[in-house]
């Protein structure tokens, strides 16, 4: 299983990378929206963990691009914006799940595994 982490905060990326790799899940890391889209389109991933507030282009932009170019890629939004409208907007743009920061690392891993297993 392969998970792409798109987050500009190295602490988030390093922690989740450690947690996921402990579960034998391979990870990749993109630090901005452009890089995230490039990696998402260029390689095969089972899940994309996507931050909203990222430099260059934000997570909503990535979601809109993916809707057109790779609509089958399951996405979990991971963002400090725990606001109702952002959740709804992210889900409308095709994300399957939404986790607010601060998060529980074990919960993120569990949701990634569930999404891979059930597709929702």
């Amino acid at each position, binding site marked *: 299983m392969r998970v792409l982490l798109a987050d500009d*905060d190295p602490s988030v990326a390093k*922690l989740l990378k450690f947690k996921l790799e402990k579960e034998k899940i391979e990870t990749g890391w993109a630090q901005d929206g452009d890089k995230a889209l490039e990696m998402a389109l260029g390689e095969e991933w089972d899940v994309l963990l996507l931050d909203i507030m990222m430099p260059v282009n934000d997570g909503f932009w990535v979601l809109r691009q993916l809707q057109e170019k790779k609509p089958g890629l399951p996405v979990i939004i991971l963002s400090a914006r725990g*606001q*109702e*409208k952002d959740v709804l907007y992210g889900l409308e743009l095709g994300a399957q799940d939404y986790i607010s920061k601060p998060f*529980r*690392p*074990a919960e993120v891993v569990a949701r990634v595994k569930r999404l891979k297993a059930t597709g929702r």
Partner: protein
Amino acid sequence: MSTTNILTLNLGLASLVLSFLLIIVLIRWLEQRKRRQYLALETRWEEIFFLYLEGALEADGFPPVKKKDYKYWEWYLYDYMKIIQGEDRDRIVRLAGHSGLLDHLYRQLREGNRWKMMGASRFLGATGEEKAIPLLRKNLAHRDSLVSLAAARGLAASGKVDYLPEVVEVLLGRSLYTYEAISEILVEFGPEVCPFINRLLKYNLLVSAYRQGGGGDPGGVNPFENQAYKGGSFHLRLSRRYPMDIESYRVLCLYIDILAFYNYLPGEGTAGAILRVSNVEEVLIHCLKYLGKVASPGAVEDILPLLQREDWVIRSQAARALGTIDPGSCLAELEGLLGDENWWVRFRAAEAMALAGEPGIARLEGLARGGGSRESGVARHLLESL
């Protein structure tokens, strides 16, 4: 001026520029050295820290952190504390305590210089430790504004909403901070601050109503039914400087903006009640923005009378809010504003009509075909922008 004087002046200027450049180089070198030191420590801590979070080792199994490295240790742990919640976060606080960092920071908060107090406030506030609260509250009244600001941030980061009024009182009492800066700090209390603010506003609405001799309950809910309000200490504390009746407009605007930031829908009834009782334009505008943002379905009745207000800003904000709430239910009222003397009011009303979809757009198209009236002008302008 003699040649010697010119030479001396030039030499003086050259040494000034040189000293300036040397200082820049020195600062840069120190920063880089600090960064390298931090990265080396981070690499050393990383793997063990994650194992600790996993529960693979306990705090006493973590290698001791030298006192000289406490600053870096604080930065390192803070980066993780701000993104993690639950048991993992509690483990970080335990590790900070076991490594001696918390005691070190408590000392700094009590006896350190300005910068040390500020750093300690940030970290200790984020831990949410009860022991930190009295110290932060004490520093809130510190004569140094930056220390006071850091204490306010620390209290906000602790998420202990009971201290919100105290923080607001201090921040508003110091003219140093802008409205935006204060809002930014208050938001750090987290979304749990919204129910607290809502109860506080309802309480004050009721007090205001009693003072005016009405004795009613404009909020729709009697806050005294809630046990927490009997002798509510926050109210008394606020009363010391800010009577907090409903026209204490700066506090009120701040609170409404926080509800809006978190899209807190349960506050809609309170904001609707404020629209009915307040005459302060600033307050009305903030309430309208909030109600429009949360698209409060029950607010239409409270907003409609504001379309007739003398202040054009209120009329335009009322039209704008209706546009996001339920423009289809008030098309006639919105259409009535298309002939308003103010361009923004006409534009917001037309915009709201368009948001109603087909019925609103059809009316705008009908008006656009008319002559050179204000109504047809704004209708054409809006339709062209769609």
